[in-house]
């Protein structure tokens, strides 16, 4: 992943972060809310190689740490998404190219979103944060997973196009 592509990816992610914070979070989804930002980030991470997924996880985590609604320490999302990026890339290598297997992509991204939120909660417990009622948290995690499952299928073509657009000539070759 080149510096220019990292910067461009960060800009794209920040755009989706703004959309999430100002618009998507206002929608009263049934079961629980949907994180478009996590869906896009994990989708882009799934299309990257190992180095790219780790770097994008860290960048995406830092942006999510900027969320004014977040009560957790700055850097927690960066830590979690860097780890998720690594785990993603490890598993992705065994699955193959996602662009040719959309169902695998959708399942992978929604499982990733669920796992990410669960890891976030577990890290919260480790850091001594009060996460509230377990049932409510599980509802949020499951709800987000279901919505990610539904929306990631719609987002896949856009994400592939977006990623191809950010590739440098050298990376295309």
């Amino acid at each position, binding site marked *: 992943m080149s510096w220019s592509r990292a910067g461009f990816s960060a800009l794209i992610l920040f755009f989706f972060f703004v959309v999430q914070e100002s618009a998507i979070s*206002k929608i009263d989804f049934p079961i629980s809310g949907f994180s478009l930002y996590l869906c896009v980030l994990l989708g882009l991470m799934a299309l990257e190689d190992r180095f790219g997924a*780790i770097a994008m996880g860290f960048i995406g985590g830092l942006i999510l740490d900027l969320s*004014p609604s*977040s009560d957790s*320490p700055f*850097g927690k999302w960066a830590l979690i998404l860097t780890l998720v990026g690594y785990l993603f890339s490890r598993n992705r290598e065994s699955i193959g190219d996602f662009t040719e297997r959309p169902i695998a992509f959708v399942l992978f991204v929604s499982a990733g979103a669920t796992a990410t939120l669960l890891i976030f909660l577990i890290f919260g417990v480790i850091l001594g944060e009060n996460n509230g009622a377990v049932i409510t948290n599980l509802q949020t995690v499951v709800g987000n997973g279901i919505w990610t499952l539904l929306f990631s299928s719609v987002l896949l073509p856009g994400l592939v196009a977006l990623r191809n657009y950010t590739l440098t000539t050298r990376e295309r070759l």
Partner: protein
Amino acid sequence: MAAGGNNRSRLLLVILLVTSLFLITLDLRGVSITKNSRSATQSLLAPIQRGVSDFFSPVGNFFSDVKNFGKTKAELKDLKSENAKLREKVIFNQDTNGQLNKLKGVLDLAGRGGYKVVSARVIGKGSSSTFSQIITIDAGTNDGVKKDMTVMGELGLVGVVKSTTPTSAIVLLMNDPTFRIGVRIARSQSVGVLMGEGDNTYTLQLLDPSGSIEVNDVLLSLGSDNNRPFVPGLPVGYVKSVKNTSATLTQEASVRSYSNLGSLGVVSVIIRVSNGGPKDALIPQPMPTPTTTIYVTQSPTPEATN
């Protein structure tokens, strides 16, 4: 080549994990850079949220509207007949002209409590990925809103101001798991701590082991030094059920809040309290039971007229 790439990835992973841990440590030690970065983001997002708020508010309730579509037809019929009855009542009841809207409700409560308030629109809600219950309002330091000020709705406490920018503020709602408030039971004057649980239920823990809690007991805010973060005497909620467990030293109760935190449109930030607060003036009054008065007029009997 592949081994080289793997080593490079592992090195990057270690560097980034260490960097993240370093950032977490800085934040936990209270370094202002990390705190300020969130304030800067809030300043950036507030105008966008305000702009999107007008456009997005009809879309926000789309799913709940769709979910209730089936119910709506049956409800519509009931409501039509109910509406007809209510129309009749309106003609005879001049008091119904004074029905208050949400903002008026808030201002009314604030007025009775002697609170000087700044009213604000809710322009944002907390993201589901953060697990925290917050809202963003369109009033900030320019309007006199400061950190740790009490936020109220038309029926009582809503939350507390967590952070501010010149034009917006983030309010930590009372159902957030980290939310704690000292409360006083209006009936027995027992004091306890109310805790949010992330959903619509709250737990009240009495500080005094000999204190008493009963179902439907009204809870008022206890207040803080200089009225920050909490002003005294604001209705918080009522006791839904009392937990009788021998495992705890103090009594616990399940509480329901007066404010419906799911449908907040307008809230007020309490800027100042006059005359030491409202004491018990804001205790919600139970609805008066209508009494029937029968007048008996004796009609003249035929014998009496003769």
